[in-house]
């Protein structure tokens, strides 16, 4: 599905990613772990073409390095940023509308599916998104991306600021995505969930992948956990 080789990314002049390698298979949930500042979000942005990147990014076999974000999106990649970029002046519903690409026909998801998933959003559908609570905003970004009907979805810290209950909900519905055959690249802090739902775990440190294996392997690897995740 997604195949990344020797990816380098830059913020202006500062070199953040130093040759990242990994792949995400079809219908697979891959967790991308790491400390703050290790470069996970940058990886996501690089894939979306939001930061200048060098190297080889292939999606469905096609090279997408250097494409414009909207082109990448149209190839079928959805992106949920960490800084919940909801559109504050638009209503919840309008936000969702903007998620829809082109005519939006034949999409896997409808507005109702979204509202069904998070009833809270239905309640607030006509309020300006800017005033939503942190958590609600998080939900909104997720749904908005789904409306674009992606085949691969990159989610940057989806559970941040969500109440534990909702967090589990999110976990469930990531599984639901998987069930619908959508691949997920999950950037997470909360190991507990990440390891629980993901098929594979990547650990990132100082701008490159330092571990690639199953959750089980990671659990069994205290060195990586201590060195790169700082958890006992």
């Amino acid at each position: 599905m997604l195949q990344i080789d020797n990816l380098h990314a830059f913020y202006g002049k500062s070199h953040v990613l130093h040759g990242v390698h990994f792949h995400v298979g079809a219908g697979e949930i891959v967790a991308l772990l790491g400390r703050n500042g290790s470069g996970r979000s940058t990886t996501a942005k690089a894939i979306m073409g939001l930061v200048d990147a060098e190297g080889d990014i292939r999606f469905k076999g096609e090279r997408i390095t250097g494409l414009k974000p909207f082109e990448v999106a149209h190839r079928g990649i959805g992106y949920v940023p960490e800084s919940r970029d909801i559109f504050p002046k638009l209503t919840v519903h309008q936000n969702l509308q903007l998620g829809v690409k082109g005519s939006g026909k034949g999409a896997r998801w409808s507005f109702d599916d979204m509202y069904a998933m998070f009833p809270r959003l239905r309640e607030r559908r006509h309020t300006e998104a800017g005033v939503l609570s942190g958590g609600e905003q998080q939900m909104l970004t997720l749904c908005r991306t789904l409306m674009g009907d992606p085949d691969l979805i990159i989610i940057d810290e989806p559970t941040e600021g969500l109440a534990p209950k909702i967090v589990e909900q999110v976990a469930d519905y990531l599984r639901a995505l998987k069930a619908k055959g959508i691949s997920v690249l999950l950037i997470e802090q909360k190991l507990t969930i990440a390891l629980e739902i993901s098929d594979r775990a990547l650990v990132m440190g100082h701008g490159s992948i330092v571990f690639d294996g199953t959750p089980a392997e990671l659990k069994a690897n205290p060195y990586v956990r201590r060195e790169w995740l700082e958890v006992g």
Partner: protein
Amino acid sequence: MEFVIVSLLNGVSYGLLLFMLSSGLTLIFSMMGVLNFAHASFYMLGAYVAYALSGIVGFWVALLLAPLLVGLAGALFEKTSLRKVHPFGHVPELLITFGLSYVVLELVQLVWGRSAVSFTPPAALQGPAFTLIHTAQDTMAFAWGQAPAEVCAQAACTPFPATRAFMMLVAVGMLVTLWLLITRTRVGLIIQAALTHPQMVEALGHNVPRVFMLVFGIGTGLAGLAGVIGGVTFVTEPAMAAALGAIVFAVVVIGGLGSLPGAFLASLLIGVIQTFAVSIDHSIGSLLTRIGVPLGEALASKDFLRLTLSQVAPVLPYLFLVLILIFRPKGLLGTRDH
């Protein structure tokens, strides 16, 4: 009696011209957040281009072509210049249009000279659209086109120029089309979203740059259209941009930034108020004397007491602008408090 009617018509038609300009500005302003100082320049450009074209292809074709060309020019400017500075924020955007207004002015003068050109309306638009006849026995009559001379011989005839009637027509058409564009299409949403989070909108699969270009093109195109009509109705000269530039800003703000209906309302209000203000010769002084406050010679000669409403009429818009922003910063129909 006919004085009131005519003044009303004049006011409304002038207001509608203002609207033709402010609509484009509102579009660009509300959607792109760009204070387009060159807007009036595009208005002027429209007039001149149409003037040049009408010599070749005739007025009516020019009426269609000129706005298109101006719109293209606008889009081109957006693509080549404005887009580059968009990331730097609003002040640079504003300044680059500022610079553009100089350049356009100079180019126009280079091509068409520094004095007015005679851009006359086509036969169809010459002469009055209708005439109000105020007969001797104090009854009002109404006649399409020019009223027969013999009638006007023993009655007061007040023709209403066809150009102005046409202007009103176009303006209303413009309002409708714009309204549809903004409400019925998703373009509006995309742009407003892109204002705050352009990257995110792109990441959702929308080609933001192209949409921006489109909007700017349309906005300037509208200015161009207004120019064609303003050009034939008034004078086509290099000063025509400067004269309207600031007023239009006043209109847009008074109406409420980003509110098309607001711009419409404000344009009409200003048009009408300005027109009627002209006809009022009262000054603070005259009012004071009217209500019996005795004014000494010295006082009466103070010019802020002598200043009549008709004299200040042309600057009323700025007065409203300030008052509105103080008492209702949203503007008349505005939604956001900038």
